[in-house]
Every structure is written in C-alpha cells, then in structure tokens.
C-alpha cells in the first residue's frame, strides 16, 4: 500500500480503468447512493425526527429523567473500563502474535475471533452460568457477598468479551505485514525492549490502534445482547442506554426512547468526528509515512 500511494502521482494514464458507458456508470452510482441513503442515512434521520416530534422541550425533559441519566452514566462507565482494557490486552496479544513464534499461536488467534463468531446472547449466558446464583462460582460468590451478575461487574465483563476482537483484529494484519526488521534494527542500536515498543512498534501502528479503539468504543456503548442477559434490567442501576431504550419503547414512551437513541447516535457520531479530527490534525505525518485508513 505504501508503494502504490507513493507512486500514485506518476500513474496519470489517459485510458479509463473500465469500459462501461456513462449511462451504466450513472445507474450504478445512483443505485449505490440510494441504497446508502435508505439503509444508513434514513434511519439516522428518523431517530432524530422521532426524538424531536414533540419539540425540544419534551426532548430535554426526557434527558432529565433520573433513570435515563443513570443509564447514560452506566454506559459511559462501562465503556471507560472496557475500552482501555481491550486496547491494552488487544495490543499485547497482537504484538505477541505478530512479532514472535510460539506454540499455540493459532489457538490464540481462534480464541480472539471467538466473540465475533458466537452470538452475544451466548457470551452473556456464559457469565450467568459461571457467576450466577445457580452457576459454578455462584455459591462461593454469595458466601463472600460479591455480586457480579445483575450488577456492574457482569455488564463490564460481558462488554469486554464481546468487544475484545476489535483492537486485535485491526492490529494483527498490519503488524504482521510490517514484520520485525525495524524492531531488530532498534535492538541492534542498543534500545531496550520497552524503548523499542514505545518508539518503534507503537508509532507504526498508532492509526490502526486508534481505529480499533474507536470501533471498540462504538460497540461497547451500543452492545445489547450480552449485556441484556447479565444486567437484570434494574432501572436506574443496571440499565445501559441500549437496554433503557428498549424499556422505554416497550412502554410506548416513543419520544423518550428516541431521545436516548438520538443521544447514543450522537455519541457514535462524536467518535467518528474525533477520528476525522485526528486524521486532519496529523495529515502531514500521515502523508509522510504514506499509511492511511
């Protein structure tokens, strides 16, 4: 990719890459745009329109509901724990997989992919079976007065499990393609392992890491299935934003439901905005290293 980027300015060829007529291209582009509008843009607009159906006053009123505020707070807390944890562990796992040879590497790779391939409901159920009152560790936990299921620790655990692959999956292919020669060069120049990691490995993957963290964050805030199983839906205590939206919707409180939904959408849009801002701020550096996402 680096090579092709660098040589792009030279590749001014007069011929077109395709032989389709202008009409065919226009139709194909129109279909793509219509599809995007219907599937991506329209739902987003609907969420905001529904939220504003009874005006700004009602919207802000539903935000001041203590249960809604508690749900927002809980979602932010869970993301604030799960995302840094997965960023650090995902980075460590990718580093080990991409830069070293060891037995059981393929098993580790499969395990990292597991949360993507199993249903989130099962991810949640696993924790109920482990830590629930009737679960393996249940009696011991009850005896020591530790609550995991139907409490914040369970929600954090379920979110961590479901969102684990995002950072690692983003980093492993990139790190593997970069190889180990820059690290070897750093070691030969007398750098310690930690210095090499901080000054060579990490800067080389920082954009992929950022991208992985943003995806992980979006999913951590939006996770429904696994969290729904372990949360117990206790209002004001163990309801995250997605769960709270469902409850409000089921109670026919459409404005309330869409108000929280619009807030969740705003958080997602903020995440994307943060990514774009960072890319814009460091565009010089990105161009210099010719690596883009």
């Amino acid at each position, binding site marked *: 990719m680096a090579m092709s980027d660098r040589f792009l300015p030279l590749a001014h060829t007069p011929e077109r890459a395709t032989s389709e007529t202008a009409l065919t291209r226009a139709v194909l582009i129109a279909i793509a745009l219509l599809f995007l509008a219907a599937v991506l843009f329209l739902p987003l607009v609907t969420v905001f329109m529904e939220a504003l159906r009874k005006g700004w006053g009602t919207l802000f009123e539903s935000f001041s509901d203590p249960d809604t505020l508690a749900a927002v707070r809980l979602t932010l807390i869970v993301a604030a724990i799960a995302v840094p944890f997965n960023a650090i562990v995902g980075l460590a796992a990718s580093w080990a997989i991409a830069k070293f040879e060891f037995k059981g590497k393929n098993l580790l790779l499969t395990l990292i992919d597991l949360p993507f391939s199993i249903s989130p409901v099962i991810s949640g159920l696993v924790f109920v079976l482990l830590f629930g009152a009737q679960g393996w560790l249940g009696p011991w936990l009850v005896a020591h007065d530790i609550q995991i299921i139907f409490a914040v620790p369970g929600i954090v655990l379920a979110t961590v499990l479901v969102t684990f692959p995002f950072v690692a999956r983003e980093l492993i292919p990139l790190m593997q393609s970069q190889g180990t020669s*820059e690290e*070897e*060069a750093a070691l*030969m*120049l*007398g*750098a310690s392992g930690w210095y090499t990691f901080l000054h060579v490995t990490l800067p*080389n993957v920082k954009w992929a890491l950022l991208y992985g963290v943003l995806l992980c964050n979006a999913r951590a805030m939006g996770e429904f299935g696994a969290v729904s199983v372990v949360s117990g839906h206790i209002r004001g205590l163990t309801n995250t934003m997605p769960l709270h939206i469902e409850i409000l919707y089921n109670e026919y409180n459409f404005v309330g439901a869409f108000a929280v939904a619009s807030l969740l959408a705003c958080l997602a849009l903020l995440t994307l905005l943060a990514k774009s801002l960072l890319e814009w701020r460091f565009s010089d550096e990105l161009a210099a*290293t010719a690596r883009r996402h």
Partner: protein
Amino acid sequence: MSVPVRVRNLEKNFGRYPALKGVSLDVEAGELVALLGPSGSGKTTLLRAIAGLEQADGGQVLFGDIDANSLSLRERRIGFVFQQYALFKHMTVFDNIAFGLRARPRSSRPSEAAIKSRVLDLLHLVQLDGLEVRYPAQLSGGQRQRVALARALAIEPRVLLLDEPFGALDARVRKDLRKWLRELHQRTGHTTLFVTHDQDEAFELADRIAILDKGCIEQVGTAAEILEHPATPFIDSFIEGIARREAQARDWTKPHVVASR
C-alpha cells in the same frame, strides 16, 4: 575501537534443516571481508548469528577476547545494516540516526547538543548534508542505504555488519556506492563483514572473501588467492565468470579497459 571477530564451529539449524554446519572464520581488526555464496548457503544466517539476531545452536563468536554470548545486544555494539535498511518510517532522517544515542540509558546518554553535532557529522560523512528533515519515504534507495549506514555508525560500533548492502539498488547506483563504501571503510577502519551473492561485488570490494555453500565455508582468501587456487570444484564453477573476465583483461594490453565489463 575495531576488534577482530573470531567465529568458532558455529552451528545453526532451522527445524531439521541445517543452515550452518560448524563454520569457523577469523576476521582481523579493520578488515573488510565478504561473505559470498548462492542463496541458501547460510551467509545471511552467519551474519545474523554474529550479530546476535539468531541464537546459534553450537559454537562460539568472539569479539577480541570477549565471548559474544556473555554480551547483551546493547553491549555487543554492532552496527548492522539491513537488506531493506529497516529505517524507522515515522521518523525523520535526523531522528533515525540519533536513535541509537537517544536509546541509551540516562547515565551514558549524550546531551541533545552532542547528539545533534554527532548526527550532522555523520550526515556529512555519508554525504547527505541538509536531508535531516526528510522522512525515509522521501529518499531514493541509495540515500536510504546511506542513512542506514550513518545510523549504524552512530553507536560507534565495534564491528560493522552489512546484509546485501547493495541488493535493493539498481546497477548504476551499486557501482557508485561500492566505490564510496570502500573509501569510507578506509577512512573509518571498522572491522566489516558484508553478505553478497554478487561475485563482482565481493571481489572488487573486499580484502578477503569467504565463499559459503550449503552451510559450510568452502574457501577463505584474497581475490587473487581464490582465483589462482580455487580450493574445490564448487569454487571453480562458482567463480568461473570472474576468472574468465580476469583472463580476458590480462590478455588485453590497454589498461583502461581492465575494470569494465
């Protein structure tokens, strides 16, 4: 500063495949030695084992009187130039060359001012004055190669190791750089080993040449020694091209065509 390198019975296996079968080699202080051989002959493995990037399965590497195994990579102080240079893509030329000095522990790290003057000196030595603000992607192949060399020289290495130093360059740049490297070696006097598969390069550049095949050193000697007394049938066939050109050159009377191909 420069030390002799002694390799004693070095062995290395990759799985069941033997890459080095008891290799021994003596390189004197300040000498420029080529490791020459076809691909798969073990020359790069030998270089990496001397550097400490590969763990040998048996044998010994000595820098002067010191067993290399008793030294960490940092303590070995080896300047290594990688085949694809392995420059740090996200750093400027200046930061690349300064890396080895900045990575030192605080107690032995030079001041930023001292680092700066050292980096600028090295840039001057490799004839890249003024390019310190560039990134590696903004340099030509030959320039990158020289940055890699300056970076390796910055740590004041005991020994300089180069893996196919001209492998990634086009023929014209190779010839220029060859001459330039020869001059640089005469000026700095580092004990230098370089790996190559190009007979011309080895015979033109090195004080002595070690020819490897299938994990063994077949012959070590100066260009004249090898050409006059090839030790084995393999050497005989491997240097055939060079021997023929040398013979042709001797037959011709005009001295200025001797070096041309």
